[in-house]
């Protein structure tokens, strides 16, 4: 069973002006100074928690960024290694010593077409 704790005060009682059809809500619960202090403290704690959560979330991104940076560095190293390997495989000495090059012969004569 609900209990209605709201009540209305007449305008006359409030000394309000005419034609102002206004009502004022008034809670029956009265909060004392200790309750107010506790509420303020709670609000500060909640705000603090929100700040800590956000800060932690940012730090989480930092770890992710670090992981990605590390991956990039790793891939860069792999790329460099492959480039070095590619350069070694296409180096003149390698090409000269290849089986294809060994089977090539020097042309006996070269003919040029006159332009």
């Amino acid at each position, binding site marked *: 069973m609900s209990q209605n704790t709201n009540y209305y005060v007449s305008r006359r009682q409030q000394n309000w002006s005419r034609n102002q059809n206004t009502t004022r809500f008034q809670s029956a619960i009265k909060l004392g100074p200790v309750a107010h202090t506790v509420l303020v403290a709670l609000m500060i704690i909640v705000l603090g928690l929100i700040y800590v959560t956000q800060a932690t979330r940012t730090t989480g991104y*930092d770890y992710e960024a670090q992981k990605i940076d590390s991956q990039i560095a790793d891939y860069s190293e792999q790329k*460099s290694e492959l480039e070095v390997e590619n*350069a070694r495989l296409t180096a003149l000495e390698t090409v000269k010593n290849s089986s294809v090059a060994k089977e090539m012969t020097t042309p006996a004569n070269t003919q040029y077409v006159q332009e």
Partner: protein
Amino acid sequence: MKPDLLKGSRSRILAGIVLAIATIFVFRLFYLQVIQHNHYVALAQAEQVKRDRLPATRGEIYALNGTAPVKLVLNETVYTVFVDPAVIIEKDNANDVEKAMKDIAGGNVRDNFEDLLEKEDSRYQIIATRVTRTQAEKIKEKDLSGVGFQAVSQRVYPEGQLASQVLGFVNAEGAGNYGLEAYMNKELSGVDGRLETVTDVSDVPLTIGDRNIREPAEDGKNVVMTIDRNIQSKVEQAIADGIKRSGATDASVVVMEPNSGRVMAMANLPTYNPSEYYKVTDAALFNNGTISAPYEPGSDVKTYTMAAAIDTGVAKATDTYYNTDSIRIDDRTITNATKGHTGVISFQTALTWSLNTGFVTLAQRMGNGKEITKTARDTMYEYFHGRLGLGQLTGIELSNEQKGIIISPDEADGNAVRYSNMSFGQGLDATLIQVTSGFTALINGGNYYKPTVIDGYIDEDGVYQQKAASQPSKLAVVKPETSRQIKEMTHVARSSFSGIDKAGYYIGGKTGTSQVIKDGVYADDETIATYLGYGGSDIDHPEYVIMVSIHGDHKILGGSKDAMPIFTDISNWMLDYLKIQPKG
């Protein structure tokens, strides 16, 4: 009701003590938090904020493969593997580490491996160097305790020792030494970046705080050289063959484009492997002899004297003089090395047979016709030094270039005797690059180009940005007609050696044999043989200039016998490589 403690009561004393302690706390906190604020903030930052250098990647060096750039010097990350012997002994896994290391990185593991692991008092012992990334990954997979890795960037030379003295090397501190690496060290090094940030215990940078700084590194420039790796390789092979043929100890070659000053090849033997520069015991091997070893150029310089004489109008190829195989200048008698062409002969004959008397005569004709007067000396100095660059730094982009010596006629030593010697290439010191650069001006129509080894750069997007076409640094150092006559004369001189060139091409050159000065006097048992020439389809289109020098300790080598075959070998190959069509 106001609570009040009785005077002298224990509660009042306790309250007083509490108040006093609280006051001390307040003052102490004030001291720590307000007065010492900066000090503690600095301490906290020192603990939490990490300052790191973001190393710039050193620029790579490219050569040309025809017209396309190919990498000649690259960077590779390798690892130094170290161990903490104490941990390994404690965990008793020395055998595991040894097996893994030798299986995976055999050649890179230090020989005294066991001794290193026994050093219990040490916490850091390097057990392998230059371990590749793949090898390092395999070692990491073994999950060995007490083993650590340190990444190190090193230069890699896929073409081995090709053009090593042009390139130079990078030492353990990352500084370029010799060659292009030293000359362009600043551009190749780039600028390191800076990272200043709060980190966690694992050194992971965190974005909290308002003092984070991240300045990215500016990587070094990727340089493309004018050196063509195919020509360079051919030249090095030709030098090696020449040294073997002549029993010489050292030789050098420069190949240049006559219409741009671009150096297509530059080689010296003996040389060294730049990836193992630390094994070189003779530092002289690091020097690029073509730019840093001035010598008496000898008879090649006769082309310079001839050009000066033609250009000043005192002689031409067909003009004659009376040759007696000797000529007297003051108290000295100058003789010809080749004798027998006595009588009235042309200057063409003098050049073909390299007769000293002909060029001393030209020097006299630049004066009053009988003496090498101050006017004659001034003229020669103007051409040799001022116009054709002998005794001057060329400005080529390589370190340790030497300028040589050419004595001015204004100096006491710049007398007639010296200038008579200079007319046939003695009494002055010049480098191969100087003589070659001056000669290109003599055969390209008369414009002097500063020699260069830089063709362009590879930008951040990997696009090749070629330098603008070279412009002559000195215009019309000789007249076009002089240039033409020099080409004809050297072509005639070369034609006296029949059957050495491919048919249908226009090749010219001049031999040189210079005595070596030892302890201030000319040695009787040692010479430097040189050959300086050009080649192309016809007289109007010289495509390359080649200069060869070859020398052996206590060896008499000759320009035509020892240097010219190297020129011929390279020249005939160049005609095919450059796809030059014969027109003759």
